[in-house]
Each structure stands twice: as structure tokens, then as C-alpha cells.
């Protein structure tokens, strides 16, 4: 698990990453309840923030590819699968850990808002995994990390609009509401709302399952590119 340990240490070594991983939960938690959905604002935008954090973390794989580190790893007795899986596991662990902190904060500060904290934690951690695999798939399509980041920002904004982060999805036409299902953020919001209402866990299984499908699909696309 050397690569896993290294990826973990490397992720928390730079200041921007530390701010994203530790400062972000603080900012998310302190924002007040507001908007049309009755959620604390921080939790409402947390999906988008997770996408940014994931793209920042996966960026390290792209840097490796650009700096020919991946080529050097290619000649070592380490398979590409091992490299990728241990890196992604480390990133996932960080984001799931962050989700746990966010869930604990919800229990401390917004206990009246969320009906089920287990549902909240499960949807947050599943979306973390989806966000990481989405960033991986996205970065595998670009040669230059800079161009990937630039386009990624636009794509995340479109996903935010489609998923119902910026305005209620019910305000959109019916056809657009159907297209919104193609965006993972839609299912994230669906899951968050279910967690807020605190219904049966079986209801939560649909968004969880679909997010898992998204994660698998993005992983299949993203793991194709091996060496630069």
C-alpha cells in the first residue's frame, strides 16, 4: 500500500488541498438555512464543492502523466490498475472522511433539518466516489491539465444548473427535467432531499444505485488512458 500512503500524504501536503479538505467543511457548516428547499446553504452547494475538490485531487494524476512520472511507474513492477486504484482509494478516503465530518456537524448544528443522518452520510460519500470517477474520466480526455481545468469549471456549472443547485428543477420544462436525470448532481439533490425528509432507507437506494452506476461508467471511461 505504498502508493496509497504516498497519495494520502501528497494530497494533504499542499496548502490549496488542505484548505479544500479542512477549510471547506468549516465553511459548509456555518452557512445558515436558506433558499426554497429548506436546507442549510452549505449543504445545498456541497455537491458542487465536492466536484471541485475531486477535480483538484485527480489533477495530481494528470500532473503525473504530464511530468512523465506515469511513464516511469510503467517500467516499475507496479500495474496501472494498482497505481490507479490506490490513488483513487486515497482520494475517496479523504472525501468520505470529509463527508463524515460534515455529517457529524449536521448532527451538532442542524439536527432539526435532517431527518436521517445515515442517509445523509451515505449519499455524501457515494457522491464523493462519483465525483472522483467523473474527474478521472474528464481528465483522461485532455493532454494538458490547464485546459482540462478550464473546461471542467464550465461542465461543473452546467451540471449545477441541470441538477437543480442554482434554481429549483421544477421550474424547468418537463423535457429538461428528464435530461437533468443524466446529471449526477440531480441524483445527489434527490438523495439530500430524501435524507432531509428522513423516509425509509429503501427510497434512498435509487439515487445511491444510480450514483454508483455513474461512478462505474466514469471509471470505465477514465481508466482507459494508461500512459501519456
Amino acid at each position: 500500500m505504498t502508493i496509497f500512503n504516498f497519495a494520502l500524504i501528497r494530497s494533504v501536503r499542499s496548502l490549496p488541498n488542505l484548505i479544500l479538505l479542512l477549510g471547506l467543511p468549516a465553511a459548509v457548516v456555518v452557512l445558515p438555512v436558506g433558499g426554497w428547499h429548506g436546507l442549510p446553504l452549505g449543504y445545498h452547494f456541497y455537491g458542487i464543492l465536492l466536484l471541485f475538490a475531486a477535480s483538484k485531487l485527480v489533477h495530481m494524476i494528470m500532473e503525473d502523466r504530464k511530468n512523465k512520472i506515469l511513464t516511469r511507474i510503467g517500467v516499475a513492477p507496479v500495474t496501472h490498475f494498482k497505481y490507479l486504484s490506490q490513488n483513487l482509494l486515497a482520494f475517496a478516503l479523504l472525501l468520505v472522511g470529509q463527508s463524515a465530518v460534515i455529517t457529524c456537524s449536521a448532527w451538532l448544528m442542524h439536527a432539526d433539518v435532517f431527518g436521517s443522518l445515515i442517509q445523509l452520510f451515505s449519499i455524501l460519500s457515494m457522491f464523493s466516489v462519483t465525483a472522483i470517477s467523473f474527474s478521472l474520466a474528464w481528465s483522461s480526455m485532455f493532454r494538458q491539465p490547464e485546459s482540462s481545468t478550464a473546461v471542467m469549471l464550465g461542465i461543473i456549472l452546467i451540471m449545477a444548473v441541470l441538477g437543480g443547485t442554482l434554481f429549483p428543477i421544477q421550474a424547468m420544462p418537463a423535457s429538461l427535467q428528464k435530461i437533468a436525470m443524466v446529471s449526477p448532481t440531480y441524483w445527489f439533490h434527490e438523495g439530500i432531499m430524501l435524507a432531509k425528509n428522513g423516509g425509509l432507507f429503501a427510497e434512498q437506494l435509487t439515487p445511491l444505485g444510480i450514483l454508483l452506476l455513474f461512478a462505474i461508467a466514469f471509471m470505465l471511461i477514465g481508466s482507459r488512458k494508461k500512459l501519456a
Partner: protein
Amino acid sequence: MRSYTDSWSPSIAVVIWRILALLLLAALWFMGDAGTEGFILVFALAILALARWRFPLPSWTTLVDQLLCISIIPFWPEAGFGLALPLFETMLAGTPLFSLPILAVLVICYVDPDLPLLLMLVQASFAGWIVLCWSKQTHQYRLEADQERRDRYELEILKGELLMANVQTAQLAELRERHRISQKLHDEVGHELTAALLAFQAFETLWRENDPQAEDMFAQAQMRLSSSALELRETVHNMQPVQATGIRSLEGICRNFKAMPVQLQIYGDTSRIAAHLWVILNASLKEALTNAVRHSKAKHVEVSLDVNEHIVRLSVQNDGVLDSSSLPGTGLRNLRQRAQAAGGSISINTSGGFQLVCVLPMGKGGIR
């Protein structure tokens, strides 16, 4: 150069078919009134297609696709169109038996099957079968091409070895001939000369003593000398080859070439050139002269042979106009290989007529 991976291939056709089928299913979901079930089905089928694009999945995995479609059909009837994907995959894998559940579904659920669905399924199985045949054929052609390439390489290697063997045989023949001559000189001429010498020494002793046998001894010595002279003449006569070799063969080729005047100039000591090199030099001269007649309208040919202690250089220059379409042919290619086998090289120059230069090393090491 285009490689076969750039061109239209069965794998690209498979990807395009899968995308089109998934787009059709997505369009049916988008236009219909199905909700999450339809979305999950399309998405799951897309993931399976992605997995097949990424890894070679076994045929039984099509049962998963079929199970998904069959379980969604009660909620969303258009999910039947999704069956086209597993049907295509089973046909593509050459295992149509795995599509039996599809037939069962058709019989049980659609007693009155509608035409578009049937058409879609028939089209899917036909497309799968066609692509399967296509990929089999491509594979077969590739195998044949590989085999031919391998054969060609083996032939090239064999050719090189034969050329090397040729040079070695020539050298061996030279050694044997030398050995034969030395043996002949030693056994016959040398023997007679020694006998004559002994006879003269005996004669000298007898002559000093005024022995009457001295005269006999002198006659015997004379006879031995004349016999050894005859042996020597015969040996030399037998050594003389019937066919012209060396520089004479080169001169003969130039003399017998009547198509245009040939000017031959020789510099250096041609006796130093080994027998196997003469074979290549002759072949080069013949090839260059034939080319001058066949491919250029030359009026004059200049041949020059330079010999120094390291290399021998044959240059054949004609003043003709080279046909721009003519490329180095088989003759020149073979010649080049023969020169390379002897450690030398053949080069051509087309500026101002056509010039062929053959450079061969005198030693064994080749040109450095």
C-alpha cells in the same frame, strides 16, 4: 503510411452500432412517459456496452442485459427494444444460444409482436452476424499477411546466407587450386629436378676422375632436366583456365558490347583482386551496360577500374537521359545484396547521365 488501425475496422463498426442502439433507446425513454426505470435501464445497458468496449467480457454476460430488459418490460414496454443489444452481442460473439431468453420473452410477453420491434431485433442479429463474419475475415487476412511477411524475411535471410556461401566457396576453390599446383610442382617437377641435380653432382665427381661412366650420367641428367621442363610446361598449361578470368573477362565484356562504344580504363594492380570479387565486378559491369541500353538513350559509356591496397572501385558512367519513372529494379537490388555480402556497396548517381559505382574491399573486414 496508413496502418490498418486507422482504417474502417470491425471494432469501430461495433462501437458505432452500440452507440446508435443506445441513442435509439435513450430517445424512446426521452419521448415516452417512462420515469426512473427507463433511465436506469438505458444507463445500465450503456455501462455494460462501455465495459465490453473496455474489456473482452464473456458471452454469458449478455444474460445480464437480457435480465435487465425483461425485468423493466412490465414497467416500460419499449424496454423490449433494449433486447437488440444483447442479441447483437450474442451474434457478434458467435454464441446465438445465449439469446434464447429473448425468444422466450417474445413468445410469452408479445404473443402479438409489433413490427418495429421485430424489425429491430432482426436487424440487430443480422448486423451482429455480418460484423462477426467481417472480423473473422479480417483476422484471416491478417494471419495470411503475417505468414507471407515471415516467409519473405526467411527468404531474404536465406539469400544472404547463399551469397556468403558463394564467397566462401570461391575462396575455398582458390585454396584447393593452390594446393593442387604446389602438390604437382613438388611431386613431379621438384622430384625430377632433384634427380637431375644429383645426377649432375655424380657426373662432376666421375668427370674429375675421368671415369668413362661420366658421359652416361651427363646424358641421364640432361634427360631428367628436359623431362622436368616438360612437366613444368604441362602443369602451367593445365593451370591456364579455358574461360577468361580476372581483368581479361572485364575487357572481354567491354569488347563484346556492340550497342555503343565503351571506353575502359584500368588503374592499379588488378592481380591483387580476389576471384570472388571478379564475379561481382563482372556482374556489375554487365548490369550497368544492360541498363544503359534498356533505360537510357546513351551514346557512350566510360568504365573505370581503380585498385588500391584497400579497395577496388568500378565506375560505369553513361551519358544518357534517365527515364524519370524508372526505379532501381531487381537486378540492381540483387547486385547490391551481393556486394553487401562481400562487405562492399553499390551506389548510383543520376545527375548527368547514369553512373553506377561498385566499391569492394580487398581485405576480409569490409569497408570501414
